[in-house]
């Protein structure tokens, strides 16, 4: 699982870093509408100022490139030396640090550009906003007929999974009745609903005013929104196809390689979709760059060029300055709630990382206490009363068992929680698979697969329990 996990993380993180690099640090700033989140002005392209802006861009792009290369090297090192403890935590910290580091030169560039703007006396004396009166509420490209089919397909998969778990549709695999497939399908369906809701919000974003000609504005916004809605529809279909594939393969035959290939294919298609979206978006920008006659200066409302804070704007959602889609107005009351939620989620992830690290570093312990076997790890105690044991055996080859996690931990050195073992879904597992051996305990309700910190300790515990069992 170690190498598989590392590869999945790399497939998820590395393309994100590349996309961040190409989106945040374009090669030529002269064609961009924004330079590090600051509105590009014709004054920046004049004489010595042009040289200053070029230097800022070159310096920050160079730093970003170094961070990108450094992140790639660290990823390779982490894959090669994968036998370290706290693997999950290390990868999560890597993901967090590398993505944050990629944004740092952008923030510094934003600061420099704002200082340059100030030194040139280009700060806005007025806060002028432009609205195209004729296009208000008129430019929408997201069609219900295109959004509904993938959502309905996802819903059908959930219904089929539910019918299988309720055993109305009979299947022979051990995971039936455990609501694993239903649970996974529901999570995917909810993600689809969220994507759909987000797409509708994006589709109702304020139309950008680039020209005094309403027709130009309408065409520009229609082209941009069409690109986004096409991407959303493709994304939804890729999502639902992946869900369908995962669902079918988990029913027929579950394998880690199969999972790896599907996740890989899913992410590759997704990344390809994002790249096509970015390419098309840039093409639209380039096509309309000659038509720009109106430019709104909202630089002061963008903290670091990334976070929008405008108390005068009653809108919750605004178009992102950099990247795909939209963001929320932090000055809006609901925007504050969303940001607070994001901060809480980050704290939760950070707390989870610490907990996972502790879990990975803490060995599993078996001990006998007053005619019971206690399996202790962190705050979890599995207590098995000797009277409830029907049979007990010592297995020597843990690799011959097929584990499928239902809930709990699944790490290189810890398998803990409810598992399906060799198609028997009523199993509780508490062992380190690297030790090789395990104790199999069958009770009226459950089958336990347990092991202690070392293979020797496991054998000793087995010998100690055996006399108590009839």
């Amino acid at each position: 699982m170690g190498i598989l996990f590392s590869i999945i993380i790399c497939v998820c993180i590395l393309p994100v870093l590349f996309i961040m690099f190409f989106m945040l640090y374009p090669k030529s700033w002269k064609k961009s509408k924004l330079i590090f989140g600051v509105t590009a002005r014709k004054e920046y392209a004049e004489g010595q100022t042009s040289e200053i802006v070029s230097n800022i861009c070159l310096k920050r792009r160079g730093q970003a490139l170094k961070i990108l290369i450094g992140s790639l090297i660290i990823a390779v090192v982490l894959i090669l030396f994968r036998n370290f403890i706290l693997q999950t935590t290390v990868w999560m910290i890597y993901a967090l640090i590398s993505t944050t580091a990629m944004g740092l030169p952008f923030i510094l560039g934003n600061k420099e550009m704002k200082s340059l703007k100030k030194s040139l006396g280009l700060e806005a004396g007025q806060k002028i906003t432009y609205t195209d009166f004729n296009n208000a509420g008129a430019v929408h490209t997201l069609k219900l007929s295109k959004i509904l089919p993938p959502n309905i397909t996802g819903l059908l998969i959930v219904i089929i999974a539910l019918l299988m778990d309720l055993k109305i549709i009979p299947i022979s695999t051990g995971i039936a009745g455990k609501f694993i497939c239903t649970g996974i399908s529901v999570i995917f369906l909810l993600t689809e609903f969220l994507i759909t809701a987000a797409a509708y919000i994006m589709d109702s974003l304020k139309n950008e005013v680039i020209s005094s000609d309403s027709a130009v504005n309408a065409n520009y916004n229609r082209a941009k929104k069409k690109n986004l809605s096409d991407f959303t529809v493709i994304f939804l279909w890729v999502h639902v196809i992946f869900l369908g594939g995962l669902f079918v393969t988990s029913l027929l035959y579950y394998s880690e390689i199969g999972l790896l290939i599907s996740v890989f294919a899913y992410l590759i298609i997704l990344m390809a979709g994002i790249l096509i979206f970015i390419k098309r978006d840039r093409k639209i920008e380039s096509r309309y760059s000659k038509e720009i006659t109106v430019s709104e200066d909202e630089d002061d409302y963008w903290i670091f060029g990334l976070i929008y804070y405008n108390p005068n704007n009653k809108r919750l959602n605004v178009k992102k300055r950099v990247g795909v889609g939209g963001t929320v107005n932090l000055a809006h009351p609901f925007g504050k709630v969303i940001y607070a939620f994001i901060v809480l989620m980050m704290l939760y992830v950070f707390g989870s990382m610490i907990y996972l690290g502790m879990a990975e570093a803490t060995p599993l312990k078996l001990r006998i206490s007053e005619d019971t076997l206690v399996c202790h790890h962190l705050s979890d105690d599995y207590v098995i009363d000797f009277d409830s044991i029907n049979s007990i055996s010592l297995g020597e080859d843990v690799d011959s068992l097929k584990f499928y996690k239902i809930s709990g931990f699944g790490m290189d050195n810890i398998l803990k929680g409810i598992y399906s073992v060799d198609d028997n879904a009523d199993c509780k597992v508490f062992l380190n698979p690297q030790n090789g051996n395990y104790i199999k305990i069958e009770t009226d309700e459950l089958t336990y697969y347990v092991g202690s910190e070392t293979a020797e300790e496991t054998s000793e515990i087995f010998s100690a329990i055996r006399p108590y069992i009839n």
Partner: protein
Amino acid sequence: MIIRIDELSDVPIYLQLRNQIVMGISSGELKSGEKLPTVRDLALEMGINTMTVSKAYQLLKTEGYIMTDRKNGARVRTEIKKEAYISDANKTELKRIVSEARISGVDKQELLSLVETFWEGGRTE
């Protein structure tokens, strides 16, 4: 037609909106009988409160520039009452503009030419 709102101006936003719509009607950018965006759509697009847009529309309706009904929403009036009269408030405003222009050394001909441009329907920033 592009609506230009100065968030730091002393003129309230509803009045700025009203003024811009009047200028749009005068310049022909908003044609007679043309449908206006709904209060909700315009408020959402401009990022302002619906009450602000509603107040501007209400004022325009009272002044006879637009008409509203539940079925068709707001429209530019097909026949705007031509009173051929400049209100006292507008006369005072015009006097202020002329005075300021004279103090700052603007040529009379230049000012008249600007009035001519606006009269013909041109818009300047």
